């Protein structure tokens, strides 16, 4: 066995890796932000007493969770193209990732909503708060706090899964790696480096979510106890 690693040619391309990493983070950021909005609305929809709304949200979740991400990306990519709509690969990638993660966050946030004791809602109703006020002031924050670890893992997973969007040549980290390895013939070294960069990105995201948690959960910051 003769392992011969040469990183010199790879390191030379560091600006390309950096650009790819930033694009990956951008994709993750957009999909996390929009996915959270979809997740909250989807969870409210799934719990709606309106059967059609609940049904539509349920079908969305099941359709996404039972199909591969790559197929979803192709569906968005070719779907938009066949409608004659032209978007950049980045936009298509961001849209597909958002649609994908939205379904998972819908389920996670729904679990959080379901975990709020009935008595909390009754107390809020007894104070004459409206349904939307109850969701916003009473249910939302404790629900998110309860599922925060699951939610943030999902977003880190999404960032890692965004590598699949290299298939539609979105210029994110994996696409950059594919390009560089074919240029330098140093495939193993390239993917070792890329793996390390993904680890760094994951750690950066986790640190970010930890800091965000300190901001949005003041009770937890002060008392340090789980809800």
């Amino acid at each position, binding site marked *: 066995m003769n392992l011969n690693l040469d990183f010199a040619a790879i390191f030379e391309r560091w600006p390309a890796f950096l650009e790819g990493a930033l694009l990956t983070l951008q994709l993750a950021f957009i999909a996390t932000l929009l996915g959270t909005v979809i997740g909250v609305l989807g969870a409210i929809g799934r719990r709606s007493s309106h059967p059609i709304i609940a049904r539509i949200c349920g079908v969305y979740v099941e359709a996404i969770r039972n199909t591969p991400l790559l197929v979803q990306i192709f569906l968005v990519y070719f779907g938009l193209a066949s409608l004659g709509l032209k978007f950049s690969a980045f936009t298509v990638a961001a849209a597909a990732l958002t649609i994908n993660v939205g379904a998972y966050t819908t389920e996670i946030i729904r679990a959080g909503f379901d975990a709020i*004791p009935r*008595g*909390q809602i*009754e*107390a*809020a*109703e*007894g*104070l*004459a*708060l*409206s349904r939307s*006020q109850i969701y916003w*002031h*009473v249910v939302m*924050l*404790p629900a998110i*706090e309860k599922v925060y670890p699951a939610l943030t893992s999902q977003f880190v997973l999404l960032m890692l899964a965004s590598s699949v969007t290299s298939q539609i040549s979105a210029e994110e980290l994996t696409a950059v790696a594919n390009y560089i390895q074919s240029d330098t013939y140093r495939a193993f070294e390239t993917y070792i480096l890329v793996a390390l960069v993904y680890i760094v990105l994951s750690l950066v995201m986790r640190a970010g979510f930890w800091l965000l948690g300190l901001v949005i*959960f003041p*009770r937890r910051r*002060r*008392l340090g*106890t789980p*809800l």
Partner: protein
Amino acid sequence: MHKITRTDTASSVVGLSNVHKSFGALKVLNGVSFEVNRGEVLVLIGRSGSGKSTALRCIDRFETIDSGEIVVCGHRVSDPKLDLRALRQDVGIVFQSYNLFPHLTIEENITLAPCSVKGISKVQAKEQARRVLAQVGLEDKLHQYPEQLSGGQQQRAAIARSLAMQPKVMLFDEVTSALDPELTGEVLKVIEALAADGMTMVMVTHEMGFARGIANRVVFMHHGKVHETGPAAILTSPATPELAQFVGTGL
């Protein structure tokens, strides 16, 4: 047809007449009638499953009734077109399990509804929070979270939260059942002070001694009916064998 009118001038604050309610095949309320006048304290007692908590919850429309009529502060509660939020602005309710919002400080718990429902300013709401907390003896807990308080303190804070909405009638649903005797005492003192201030109240309780001291009227429920009703004296000299047996074991 009945017209929906607010009859604030009448002294009756809560009125139930011939109320029926079933959960599936189980008949919980079987023709319940009683009335509470302004400034009165009505105490509902009875065995578990006698329908007293259900009767109380019907007053605030946490349960809907099958037939009969309920009028609360001029709102026809039994009307399907009832303005639920208007009713609940007039009625305060306190639960056995306090149900404070755990992610909010005591102050935020208290100011939430006045700010978002009544639209009063934050400054005004905070001032009022201080006032109602002083009323229940917790002015130093303003910035604590519910979990930092004892059960009795949490229940007093829940009462303060209700008071901040300036209800015309307060409902208490077994508010001391989760507390030990010492904590029960501090909560009951707060309720006594409210009664002395002239607050109209309906309460479900198992504290017979307390009921005797505070009730203007006692309603003893049995098998979904008002089995015996009268002044607090009926607790010491019951007319029916069922109430005699109940207070005999309850005291």
